[in-house]
Structure formats: C-alpha cells, structure tokens
C-alpha cells in the first residue's frame, strides 16, 4: 500500500503464508538461514497472496486475551449506529430500513457529479409597482457543477421537508409523462408481489380446504348434509371448483412490463431524440446506479437528486474470543473521535523501522513535504551489487524489557535475490516508561561515576563517520529502542549474459515482472519477556491456575512472534 520507501508492513498470523517460526537463532555473526526448516516456511513478500496478509501498523489491532495480532481479516465488525455524513444526525436502526439506507432530511447529492446539493433561495425580481411580498421559491443547487433542480423543473415552496416536496413532484411527473415511461420500478414491484400473493391463495394450497369451515372433513360434511337432506355427496363433488394452476402476470396492473413490436410511434419519437443527443447528455453507469430512482434514466435530464447514503460506525471484535478490540464513542457530534475501547497492535508489539545508515534523522517523509520541490524528489534507486548498510530500529512499547531475536533468509525469496545480513540478530530492548523514568534514572547514573565517560563518548559519538558497524554489536540504544545494522546487497534485475544462448522458456523466466524490482526483506521477529504474575492480566482472564514457573517469585514468560516485511527501495539498472 505504501508507495514511499522505507516502509514496514506486518503480517498477521492468520494467513497460511506465515507458518511456524524458525528455531531461535544463536548469537552468531551471520543470521542463521532457515536451511533446516523447509523453504516454504519463510514469508515470501512477492507471493501473489502476500498482500492479503500484510498490513501497515495503523490498521492492526491486538487482542489482549489471545495475545495475538488481529488484522482486518481476523476481527469481526458490528454496526453500532448509522449516521448521515452531511447532517451528522444519528438515524435509529428502525428508520434505516424504511428509508432505504438514506437520509430522510434535506441532504441530497447532485446526480451528475455527486457533490452536495444546497437549498438556495431563488433571486426574486421585483416588478415595478408590486405591493405583494414576493414568494420565496427554493431550488437545490450544486455548487460544483452548476446543476440545479431547475434542470428537471422542480422548485420548492419552503426550504424544509424537501423529501416530501420531491416525492410530490415525482408523482406529478410520473402521472403526466405516463405514455413514454413505463411503470415505475417501485410500483411494478408492488403490483407483482400483490399478484403473486393472490395467485398463491387462489391456486389452492390443498392443505386443508375445509380448515375454515365448521365441518372439519368432507365426510363430516357429507354426513350432516345427508341428515338434513340436500345435495348428495356426488353432486357436491362436482360443484367443487378445480383449483386453477398458478399463472404468470399479464399486463401492467399485475406488474408485467410488455413491449410490443408494433409500437412504432413511440419508438420513432425516441429514435429521433437520440439522433440529436451528444455523448455528455447520456448517463453513465455510475450515475444510474446512484439511486433506485435513477436506474432507468437514460438521459442526464431524467436524473433525480440522490438522497445521501448513510454511513456506519462499527465496532470490532476478535473472532476467537468475543473481546472488543475497538469501540468508538457512539456520539457522532462529539468533537473528538473518541474510543471507549481501543487496543492497538502498536502498543503491544515491538515496532521495526529501517533507514539508511548515512541518512540524517529525521527522514524526509513525502506526505509531509513542506515545499513544492520536495514533492518532485524521487527517491534514488538502489544500485545492484553494491553493499548498503541500513539501521534497523526496534521500539518497545510495553513496560518490560524484552529480548528480541530477528531472523531473515540470507537471500530474499524472490526472483531478484538480494543478500541480507543482520549483524546482531539477538538483543534486548529497554522498557517504555514515562519520560520521568528516564530523567530520574539518568540522573542517578551520572552520579554513579560512570557518567563522565558516558558524557564524553556521547559528545564524540555525534560524528558517526568514524563508527564502523561491527558484527554482534548493537549500533545504538536508547531508552526504549535499539538499533542494529543490516547489510543488504541488492541483486540485479537482469541476469548476466551467458555464452550459451538461452531457450525461450529461460528468457521468459527472466523477464522482470511488475513489483520485482522492489526490494523487500522479510524479517521474523520474536520477542520474549517476563511478566510478574500480578500483572498477568491475560492469564487471570483465562482463569488459569497460578503455576510457579522457574520457581522465581512467580514470573510468567511470555513471547510474541510475527513476520514483517521491510520495504527498502527500488532496484535500478546496474
């Protein structure tokens, strides 16, 4: 989704592309290639289905009880309420169905351009000598494309209750223009349902034709008839009507639209008018589908204003456990978009960010381009076969220090194979705390005597030119984040020329598909931390018994593992 490099996308464990994690790597120099695990357990970001598993961080939620990431496919949505986007009024769910999911107040959209229609008063001309106050007439006007309701010949007497006035005008139109227009859609539907209901009851259910007569069976009736005299049983049988078989609708009264070949006069009229049309006067499919009233409109001047469709506010629940992940405040008109419950993944999982080693902080972000020249800047392409060094920063959002283990395949699993090496795949990241924690802890540190050296080193380390990334060493550590260095050698798009001429199949296999030149690195992240049992909310919710793990003062080990894809850049031609 992100077109700007560098980006980080996280994979939810719901898809079958993310299977079990490779075994945790030992602290060696090179990252352990998962050669012992089968090849398909590595997440391949160029897989055609990979896009369905990856999401950017702001779309991911987290379930506390299951302690897992929930992506858009893993949570279910329920509608809390409906509201009109223009008037921001909440519509009760009972009224939603009857109004056809549309606003029943004065909110209408232009049928031609879908912008909003405003109720404006028509300018009045005062004729000389008029003593009567002029009547205000109102029209619906689109300020974007200059369409107005005068184009369909509709004016209003008062600015409120536009829905009623529009309905009245529509009926007048339908009544007057009956010859060319066939049955209105709604009328046809109503006629047809009434007809079929009638047919069902007429054709005889044969369930129990005697159910509503006082004689519950034919033998009963026959017996009593013979007691009191009257027609015999045979005569009765003959006079009983045979149930008619069910038939189809005939004619407009019953809901059927008929077209005859002989209706030449009407057809000629239509054909003549079509000859004088320009393309712009015909409706597009989008305009016709905007509202049921417009479904049959062939020409732009038949289009009717579209009532604004309602929007919904939804709450999200985990699919496995019925825990609310996100519950917005039901009041629409509240100034802040507040949430009653909101459990975000970015507050629970370690976050990765990648940037080039030489890049200055903070990075220029194209969506925050402050000047017009910044917009034009294209990010430079990566050159193949040249080693680039990147700094990967892991940020820890939770209150405990975590031990992070990273794993990535040594060559990226796609057609353009780039070599990736993480110089320090296993390290710890400090806890996130308040800013006060950091200030207090740093003051005690400086008093402990090691502060002077630390201060000196921080002064000189401002110039990072002299620092060389070393294997097994952390690049930088702050309060709640740690940075390590990754070396990436981009592969080249075209394979080297060979002496033996290639077959057609080989040539086709070498063609660069769209998206192949994007360098994406899949990284498996595994974080482990310990939580004291008092703070172990999730286990308490599950009602688990307190088991003393490790025998040390009731600490529970937790871990979380996921795949993520780092988008580094585009590979250019060598």
């Amino acid at each position, binding site marked *: 989704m992100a077109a700007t490099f560098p980006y980080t996308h996280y994979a939810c464990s719901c898809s079958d592309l993310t299977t079990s994690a490779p075994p945790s790597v030992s602290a060696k120099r090179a990252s352990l290639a998962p050669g012992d695990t089968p090849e398909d357990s590595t997440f391949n970001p160029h897989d055609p289905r990979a896009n369905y598993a990856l999401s950017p961080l*702001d779309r991911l939620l987290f379930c506390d009880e299951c302690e897992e990431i929930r992506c858009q496919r893993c949570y279910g949505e329920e509608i809390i309420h409906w509201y009109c986007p223009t008037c921001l009024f909440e519509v009760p769910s009972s009224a939603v169905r009857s109004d056809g999911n549309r606003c029943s107040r004065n909110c209408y959209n232009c049928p031609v351009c879908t912008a909003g229609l405003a109720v404006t008063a028509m300018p009045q001309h005062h004729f000389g000598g008029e003593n009567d106050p002029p009547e205000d007439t109102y029209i619906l006007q689109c300020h*974007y494309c200059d369409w107005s309701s005068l184009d369909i010949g509709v004016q209003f007497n008062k600015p409120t209750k536009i829905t009623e006035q529009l309905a009245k005008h529509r009926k007048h139109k339908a009544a007057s223009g009956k010859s060319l227009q066939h049955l209105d859609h709604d009328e046809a539907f109503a006629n047809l349902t009434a007809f079929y209901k009638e047919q069902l009851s007429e054709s005889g259910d044969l369930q129990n034709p005697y159910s509503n007569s006082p004689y519950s069976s034919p033998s009963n009736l026959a017996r009593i008839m013979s007691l009191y005299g009257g027609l015999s049983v045979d005569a009765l049988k003959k006079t009983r009507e045979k149930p008619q078989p069910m038939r189809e609708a005939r004619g407009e009264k019953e809901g059927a639209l008929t077209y005859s070949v002989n209706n030449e006069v009407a057809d000629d009229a239509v054909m003549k008018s079509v000859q004088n049309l320009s393309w712009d006067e015909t409706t597009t499919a989008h305009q016709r589908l905007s509202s049921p009233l417009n479904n049959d409109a062939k020409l732009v001047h038949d289009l009717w204003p579209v009532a604004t469709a309602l929007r919904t506010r939804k709450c999200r629940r985990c699919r496995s456990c019925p825990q609310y992940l996100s519950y917005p405040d039901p009041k629409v008109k509240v100034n802040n*978009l507040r949430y009653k419950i909101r459990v975000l993944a970015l507050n629970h999982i370690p976050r990765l*960010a990648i940037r080039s080693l030489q890049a200055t902080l903070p990075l220029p972000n194209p969506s925050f381009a402050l*000047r017009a020249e910044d917009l034009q800047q294209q990010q430079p392409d990566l050159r193949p076969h040249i080693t680039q060094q990147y700094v990967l920063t892991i940020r820890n959002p939770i209150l405990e220090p975590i031990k992070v283990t990273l794993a990535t395949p040594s060559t990226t699993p796609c057609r353009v194979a780039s070599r990736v090496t993480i110089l320090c795949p296993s390290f710890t990241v400090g806890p996130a705390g308040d800013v006060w924690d950091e200030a207090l802890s740093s003051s005690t540190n400086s008093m402990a005597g090691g502060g002077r050296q630390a201060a000196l080193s921080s002064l000189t380390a401002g110039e990072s030119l002299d620092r060389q990334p070393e294997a097994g060493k952390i690049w930088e550590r*702050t309060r709640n984040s740690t940075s390590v260095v990754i070396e990436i050698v981009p592969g080249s798009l075209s394979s080297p020329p060979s002496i033996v001429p290639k077959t057609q199949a080989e040539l086709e296999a070498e063609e660069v598909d769209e998206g192949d030149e994007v360098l994406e690195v899949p990284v498996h992240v595994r974080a482990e931390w310990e939580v004291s049992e008092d703070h172990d909310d999730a286990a308490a919710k599950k009602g688990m018994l307190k088991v003393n793990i490790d025998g040390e003062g009731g600490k529970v080990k937790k871990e979380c593992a996921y795949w993520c894809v780092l988008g580094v850049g585009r590979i250019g031609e060598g």
Partner: protein
Amino acid sequence: MSRPAPVTRRSAKTEYIETDTGNKISRRARIEGKQNIMLAGKSVVMAGATLRGDLHRKSDKPAEGEKGGSVTAISVGKASIISTDCTIRPPMRLSRGQMTFYPMRIGDNVFIGTGTHVSALSISSHVHIGAGCVLSPFCVIKESCKILPGTVVPSHMIIPPGSIVAGRPARVIGEVGEGWGQGGGGEGEEYVEGGDLRPLVRSIK
C-alpha cells in the same frame, strides 16, 4: 497575536520570526490583517503562505463610548503547520446584496500541504491535508480526516470524522485506521500523519 521575541542585531536575518508562544512565522509569508489572526502556539506559517486576516466580519456597532472589539478572522490551533504557498482565506457569502465573511477555525495538529487553497469554515484537529488541494468556501472538515493530495472539496461539504477523502469533487473513499495519529513523534521516530506535529515544528528552521 503575541509579541515577537526581541530581535538581536545579527548580520543575517533568520527565516522565521519566533514568538514567545513558540509560533514560527516566515518573513516571506504574506499576512494581511495580522491583528485578526490568532495562532495558538507552536504553529508554523511557512514562506509564501498568504493569510487574509483582513477579510473579516465588520464588527457590530459598539455601544456608546466603548471601543469595538477586534474580530478574529482566522484562528489556528496548536502545532499546526501551514506549508509553503498556501492561501488561507476566510469564506464569504453574498446574501441580500451584502458580502459577509465568516471566521475560519483551524484546529490543533493540522498539517496543510504545500500550495493548497483553504477557504473552509472549520478544520478540526488531527487532520492531514495533502499538497495542491482546494477546500472551497464553507466546507467543514471534522477531526482525524485525511485529504489526499489534489482533492477539490466542493463548497458546503461536510466531511465526517475519520474519513479519507479524495477526488474532484471530493468523495469519502475510506476510513482512517484505528492507529491514526498514534505511535509517532518520539525521539528519532518518523512523523505520523495525524499525530503530534510538535517534533516537525521544532525541526523547521
């Protein structure tokens, strides 16, 4: 508007005038009617931005002897950024032969991209507006919205909170994620759309 900090005699003039509430106003910004413009604090007006504070409603006739109070034409919230070459003009309406201007309110943490024309009636907080947009008079943008670059928002349109808006005329094409505005702006972190813009303000020099 707050007083600018006392200017020290230096040979080179700085690009931004910094006030004591932390607002940064570029010297190359074109501001008319600066008495009628309120910047809440830590907001930035960059070079080439035009702010028309002179288009304001004529204040009502004051009672005898009292001075008419100043009328705010444009009020901008905290940590909002108005990028280069923007035009901020309060919306006006011609009613009964008289032109009336309405005050424009811009909320906190609003990022307005370069070259946009803003005539909206109000922009709520945590809104991210892309480059080259046009917000026609009297449109209302509710909080936590994202307006993609190049959109033209028709006049009188109300954009519901939390929507992503694009196109000409603008249509709501989606909703922002739950994590809108969260998770950015820490030390050394990237700026997040809709998030706290104070680090970005600090970095503008």
